[in-house]
């Protein structure tokens, strides 16, 4: 849903096994902001998927939320406040439903707060000072986002890791971590030069290891140089793995 950049949207749609995957957008972290819901429908058009969204602020009596989410191929969680997101989800029992979806093989993905929520813990800086939060814990590691854009997040993440936060991943804007079960399958990006790091504390010192990030766009070809490897060279997820638990953060 990046403005003018459909690369990550296409990547996520490409993970589904059907031509026209059912994609449900959950905008709880933004308080179901109308402009965000509109942006979702503009990005996920009916010619390539079957889009819907789930509002937890204006719930009608009709639809069974659990049934609807379990029938999706992809659940896409929007950004905003991860703290508010988790509060609202718990009030509606969505934390349990989402876990069920994950276990049933629905692809879970999201941006910003919609990434943070999948992890056991991490750093959010949405409400000013960067602070620790506890997430859903589908992924047994930690996470922080907007890593390159906000220095305070890096400082807070390093400090939390030194103070016992479990090891995890820092992702810059445009970078997406693709997990199958607990395993990081690959890191892709919608922006050339986007960065992601594995971070952990070793005897009180934070070790930051850069991850190989595959840019999803057309490679920039240097004049006269060798043609760079195209992304298609990255092996696709084997059909046998399609039912496994995946999350793209």
């Amino acid at each position, binding site marked *: 849903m990046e403005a003018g950049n459909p690369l990550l949207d296409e990547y996520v749609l490409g993970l589904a096994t059907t031509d026209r995957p059912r994609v449900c957008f959950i905008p709880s972290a933004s308080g179901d902001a109308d402009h965000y819901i509109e942006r979702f429908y503009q990005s996920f058009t009916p010619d390539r998927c079957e889009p819907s969204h789930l509002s937890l602020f204006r719930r009608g009596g009709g639809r069974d939320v659990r049934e609807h989410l379990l029938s999706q191929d992809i659940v896409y969680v929007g950004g905003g406040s991860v703290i508010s997101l988790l*509060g609202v989800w718990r009030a509606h029992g969505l934390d349990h439903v989402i876990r069920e979806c994950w276990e049933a093989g629905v692809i879970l993905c999201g941006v910003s707060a919609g990434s943070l929520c999948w992890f056991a813990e991490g750093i959010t800086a949405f409400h000013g000072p960067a602070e620790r939060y506890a997430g859903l814990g589908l992924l047994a590691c930690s996470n922080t986002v907007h890593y390159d854009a906000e220095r305070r997040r890096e400082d807070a993440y390093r400090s939390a890791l030194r103070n016992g936060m479990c090891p995890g991943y820092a992702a810059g804007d445009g970078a997406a971590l693709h997990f199958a079960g607990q395993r990081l399958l690959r890191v892709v990006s919608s922006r050339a030069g986007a960065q992601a790091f594995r971070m952990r504390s070793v005897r009180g010192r934070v070790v930051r290891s850069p991850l190989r990030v595959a840019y999803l766009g057309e490679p920039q070809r240097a004049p006269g140089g060798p043609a760079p490897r195209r992304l298609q060279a990255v092996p696709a997820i084997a059909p046998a793995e399609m039912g496994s638990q995946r999350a793209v953060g």
Partner: protein
Amino acid sequence: MTAGAEAGARRILAMGGGGFSSSVADAPLERYIASVSGAERPRVCLLPTAGGDADDQIGRFYRAFRAIAEPSHLSLFRLGTHPVSLREHLLAQQVIYVGGGSLANLLAIWRVHGLEEVLRAAWEQGILLCGVSAGSMCWFEFGITRSHGRSRSARGLGLLPGSNSVHYSSDPERRACYHAEVLDGLAPGYAVDDGVGLLFSGPRLVEVVTARPGARAYRVEAAGGELHETPLAPRLLEPVPGGVDGPVEIAEFRDARRARAEAARRRRGA
């Protein structure tokens, strides 16, 4: 009857619906809130949490209060762009106004942000707490919410004893649910129409007011297996001088006119 503005007065104004977010003119309720606060131009902070911090609700709030108060609002969804200390800001107010929307979401979000404790402190220090719909029921032990689609009872903060149901005459399904729940043992309480406010001092109901002629509130309780609905006659508030709907509509007109003029200036490249 006018409640005092002294510290520790522990006042709550619980409104059944309408208020600034309604198209019907409830401007007298806003004047009433300002007068109960005891301040000439009270600092009034809106918590639009239950509506997901909807821009529309926030805009209407400023239009309704800017002539008579110092309005501000706190977003728990978009605070990142304007970080403030929630506690400091709220405890510096004279009125805290909670907007309508989803009661379940409101309470869940307050809990994770630690606002329950801040609001209790605000109440104890004499800040007037008020709100409409979900922003009314949240103060009681129980409310009748449609947060999950169908009506059902849900726990509130419990600053006020008993239960509360809102939109009483305009939402028959909620009314039926309230009756059934009270007959089934839910704590007795108050059913309130749109445009009606109940003013409490501590746990005691001290005044019932309305901006709408004919609107009502009721004490609802069960006795001997039967439901009793006792009407509470509200005091009709004075209409706001200059036409009830005038100030808000004229302010909207002026806003729109200013925006058009600004756009025209930009087009001319000025």
